[in-house]
């Protein structure tokens, strides 16, 4: 209970002081506003989407944008707009879940490695650095190849691909903070390691990790789309931006709208995430602390 109220307070302060300031700039407001809108669209997809994302109408396949299909239809006559809207659900939830898992695991590993040091630190960092020596997409592909395609494996594949980043960043923060006078002062007051780690080190280390997490959601969306494009992510008929683009390649010249709109969705979302992340970095004034990642 103590820890949760503490976390709530930290997050509350964080929200008021930093996220608020990130919204304050023009770019931050536009990018942040778009992301909030996108999240709302994803949540309320069934009420917003004009058609059933899986309803086929072969009589009306490959219809160009117009009325009633604003963004046209695909080769099965499914409404592209509805599929893009439902695709936002898949992309955002897979990426956000994956990054949340990755952050939680990376922060735990990194904090423990940075705080306790010694053999444990070397073992963790060696494994983590090893995963970092491969491109993200390769790690994700290997992982999906092992446990099979689908959204769950996509989620874990993305989580593992970004684990190194969070572990390294958290470890770097903890190692730096550990030598700060106020941590020594806490030791002098007789605090035990868990108190120092959870109540003093983590709250001070968390800001850059959150920002990197924010930016990683953008990368996660791209990775999810990539895996979807290769047919390793969402399985039909579940709409995913990557899978939609993949099926669109076949009719690239006949009906380019099938590939263009999900592509635009990915691009705009990732740009918005990155712009907002940059504003967050500025608002938190932590540019120099991100170098450890």
């Amino acid at each position, binding site marked *: 209970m103590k820890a949760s109220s503490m976390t709530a307070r930290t997050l509350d*302060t964080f929200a008021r002081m930093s996220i608020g300031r990130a919204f304050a700039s023009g770019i931050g407001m536009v990018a942040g506003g778009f992301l909030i809108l996108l999240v709302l669209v994803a949540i309320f997809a069934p009420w917003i989407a004009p058609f059933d994302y899986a309803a086929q109408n072969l009589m009306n396949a490959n219809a160009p944008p117009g009325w009633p299909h604003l963004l046209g239809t695909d080769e099965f006559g499914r409404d592209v707009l509805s599929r893009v809207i439902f695709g936002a659900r898949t992309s955002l939830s897979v990426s956000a879940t994956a990054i949340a898992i990755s952050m939680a695991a990376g922060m735990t590993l990194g904090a423990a490695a940075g705080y306790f040091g010694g053999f444990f630190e070397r073992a963790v960092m060696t494994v983590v650095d090893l995963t970092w020596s491969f491109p993200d997409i390769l790690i994700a592909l290997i992982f999906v190849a092992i446990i099979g395609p689908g959204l769950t494996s996509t989620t874990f594949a993305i989580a593992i691909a970004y684990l190194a980043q969070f572990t390294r960043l958290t470890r770097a923060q903890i190692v730096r903070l550990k030598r700060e006078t*106020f941590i020594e002062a806490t030791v002098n*007051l*007789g*605090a035990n390691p868990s*108190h120092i780690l959870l*109540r003093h080190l983590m709250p*001070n280390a968390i800001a850059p990790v959150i920002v990197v997490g924010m930016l990683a959601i953008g990368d996660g969306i791209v990775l999810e789309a990539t895996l979807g494009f290769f047919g390793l992510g969402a399985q039909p008929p579940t709409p995913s931006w990557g899978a939609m683009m993949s099926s669109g390649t076949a009719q690239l010249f006949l009906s380019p709208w099938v590939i263009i709109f999900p592509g635009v969705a990915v691009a705009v979302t990732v740009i918005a995430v990155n712009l907002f992340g940059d504003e967050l970095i500025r608002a938190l004034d932590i540019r120099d602390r991100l170098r450890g990642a």
Partner: protein
Amino acid sequence: MLSVRDLGVAFGAVEPLSGVSFSVEKGETIGIVGESGSGKSLTAMSVMGLLPLIGGRITGGKIVFDGQDLTDLPERAYRKLRGGRIGLITQNPMTSLDPLKKIGPQVDDVARLHLGMDATQARARTVEILGTLRIPEPALICERYPHQMSGGMKQRIVIAMALAADPDVLIADEPTTALDVTVQAQIIRLLDDLVKQRNLALVLITHDMSVVAQTCDNVVVMYAGRAVEYGPVETIFDRPRHPYTQALIACIPRGLEETARLTGIEGTVPTVINYPKGCPFHPRCARAEAICATDPPDFSVEGDSAAACHFAEVAHAQPA
């Protein structure tokens, strides 16, 4: 209450501290003086059991606190003493507080940790302690963040944290170094009052002989990791027998006449890896003779004070 006997400390092969002894009882203040690098802070860290955390170890001697030898106390047991029965105030109040936590919870933590109080009790105690430290509007201060406070105020908060669990011994390691002169005087007076009011045993580590003269009952003068002279403060100031002590006393600025000049001691404290043979002070000592470079001097005891100098018996001419 706390007595250190012939303490030696080593980091690997180097031995920055050897033969340090002092003791302090409740209601007393002992001053440990010396220049930077003479081993004062290391002595404090040894008493706090912090050496293993920085890679050092105790090679000899005893640290006895309340009848218990602390030299091989396990870390877990030491944690109960630290902040609980032995408080430490460090040199830098500016960075000794967690920047993300309000003052109140930071001070509360100590009482919760060591006295098992709940949040409400701990806060009541925090407010009370802040009050006794003459901090205006303690309840309001509890809601402030460290960056909203001045250096002197932060140092008082750090003192409050050291006192929160009602320790028997307080070690103040240059508590005023980072503060400006008027605030320094306030903090020193505050510590002096606390010793009397709370019957504390205070170990005051400083390089300022004038602070020692104002507050301490006994003094240990340290040089190059060794105690070179110790005794009651009156004796040390009236009749210093070690040339180093004399030099330190001569450094106290005095006199307002325009001709008065500030004196210093030539040279610097040797580093740990090249402590000189014989008497460690001989390269900088005006009185040094051949024997000083070869034989380390023993303590020459006179009454309740002692000085480690080959010429302690000789009445030294007071340096002007």
